[in-house]
């Protein structure tokens, strides 16, 4: 906790997350990234949606907005466009960002708004009690998929890249150090950055799918993750049942708020109103 305590609203603690939940690890990783970059606390805004993950904003001592179901990116776009000098970090869940907020997600990526979005991906709606999300794997069980899920799940990274995000990465709660580095790079990227942060929900997801304790789920993250650098040396069959972590994509594209500033410079009336 050293170094990041100053970014916590201690009066808001203890947090509401269940024992074994990975969200606290993700929160700490994000705060370490903020600390590492030495972001001006005054100029940093945290925006979250609704759900377990999105309670994180309340524990963070910045200007923080806990928005409505799926709408974090819409608020964040308004904040960033109105005041581009602010660093805007968005915390959201897998259901929040890709189901009810799916449309906003692809359009924020398309515009390449300079936002860093960390998706707390636990494959489930945790706060509402374990209903399936767009990230629930096929055949997994959920309270609304009692016989096994028959929908295919999204690949958040592929979705983000296709929609126009300029920095896309994946980390896990187990690889917390790596996650901090990925968030650092995401914040540094001048454009829309997405970090798919895999985390464990032992209560609403793990228990139903017989994944064991929180420690077992962390071990599962360790054993299933493949560093992106290693992929080229692996055969396709070696990757079965695994997922790739690290920096997955980076590109350069016009950033929305910078383009808007250029537009203002082009059309601004001399001498003001």
């Amino acid at each position, binding site marked *: 906790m050293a170094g990041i305590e100053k970014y916590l609203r201690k*009066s808001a603690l203890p947090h509401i997350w269940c024992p074994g939940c990975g969200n606290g690890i993700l929160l700490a990783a994000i705060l370490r990234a903020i600390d590492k970059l030495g972001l001006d606390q005054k100029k940093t805004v945290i925006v979250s949606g609704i759900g377990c993950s999105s309670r994180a904003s309340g524990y963070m001592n910045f200007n923080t907005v806990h928005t409505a179901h799926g709408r974090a990116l*819409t608020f964040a776009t308004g*904040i960033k*466009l*109105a*005041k581009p*000098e602010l660093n805007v970090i968005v915390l959201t869940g897998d259901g929040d960002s890709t189901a009810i907020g799916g*449309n906003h997600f692809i359009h924020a990526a398309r515009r390449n708004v300079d936002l860093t979005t960390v998706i707390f991906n636990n494959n489930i709606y945790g706060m509402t009690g374990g209903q399936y999300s767009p990230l629930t794997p096929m055949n997994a069980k959920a309270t609304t998929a009692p016989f096994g899920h028959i929908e295919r799940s999204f690949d958040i990274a592929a979705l983000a890249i296709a929609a126009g995000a300029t920095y896309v990465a994946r980390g896990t709660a187990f690889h917390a150090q790596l996650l901090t580095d990925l968030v650092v790079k995401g914040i540094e990227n001048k454009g829309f950055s997405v970090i798919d942060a895999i985390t464990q929900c032992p209560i609403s997801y793990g228990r139903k799918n017989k994944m064991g304790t929180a420690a077992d789920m962390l071990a599962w993250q360790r054993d299933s993750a493949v560093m992106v650098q290693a992929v080229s040396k692996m055969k396709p069959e070696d990757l079965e049942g695994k997922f790739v972590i690290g920096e997955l994509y980076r590109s350069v594209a016009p950033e929305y708020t910078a383009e808007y500033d250029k537009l203002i410079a082009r059309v601004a009336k001399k001498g003001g109103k």
Partner: protein
Amino acid sequence: MAKAQLMQGNQACAVGALAAGVTFFAGYPITPSTEVAEILAEMLPKFGGKFIQMEDEIASMGAVCGAALTGAKAITATSGPGFSLKQELIGYASMAEIPCVIVNVQRLGPSTGKPTSPAQGDVMQARWGSHGDRGVIALSPTSVRETFDITVKAFNFAEKFRTPVILLLDEVVGHMRETVVLPESGDVEVIDRKRPAGPPEDYQAFKPEADGVAPMADFGEGYYYHVTGLVHDYKGMPSQNNALTTELIDRLHTKIERARDEITIYHQDYTDDAEVLVIAYGGTTRAAIAAVKEARAKGVKAGLLTLVTIWPFPGEVVAKAAAKAKTVIVPELNYGQLVGEIERYVPREKVVSLTRYDGELFRPEEILNPIITAGGGK
């Protein structure tokens, strides 16, 4: 020297927003409101303001809330179906006390209805569209010039009371062209939100002052606070406390209720001795005043009360104006939405509801005939 110019209602709305200091627009195109967006898309960047066409109506309302938190005066414009989509976040803006203006140029509904036809079908949606209980300010101008003035008022009320304000135009007022003379910019009263004066560490973003409203810091100034749609304490932190819940919901009403006199805008024509009182609002007022004048010419003591402030409902004004009248006639371009509210203040047997919901306006004679009947004339 101010000059006369031909202007459309939607244009007057955009120009009024600029006069009030708007710096941010987010919206999604929908007939018959689009001119507000189109004009602001052109005007805002010229003054360093920001315009964005979002991916949908909900996103637009979210962006407006976000921008307003940074200190921007923010506006969106929509019509009935889009207004419905925005309702959750309009409620959020009420709960989180985010000042902003939502223009709803009404069209005939339900559903996509008749996009280019005038209607006044969103009177109740403006009041009750969002879930839960909250105080609401909704204003409905009657002319192009008044649209300018009332748009400025909408921003001023939003800033002063830290609340979303609904501007209810109808298609007639939005698309009508009239010659107007607008005031010089120095002659327009512009109110800005209260800002905190004390040290940031003492700041409580939702702790009301005597007027029921807390000062509001811009994001980025160093006054850290939490904004949430959950029931929250003075610092904005979520709370389950029952007493605090009651206090908060009460305050969302009372901060507006206690300023009722200031918020209530209305006009009276020939009401002093009126035996037949017409109560109208928005574009319907125009046929109503023609009917009232015609009735006077025919010897019937008719009068017109025009309600510009729809919510909070000006019940006392209605009761007072109607006290001496034998009959109160309420023409509306809907199935009868505001008339129910009027009947809470005027004995029901005195009230005649006139409704039209086919997409056409009232013609003056449609209001004149019941006035003459009620006034005992022929």
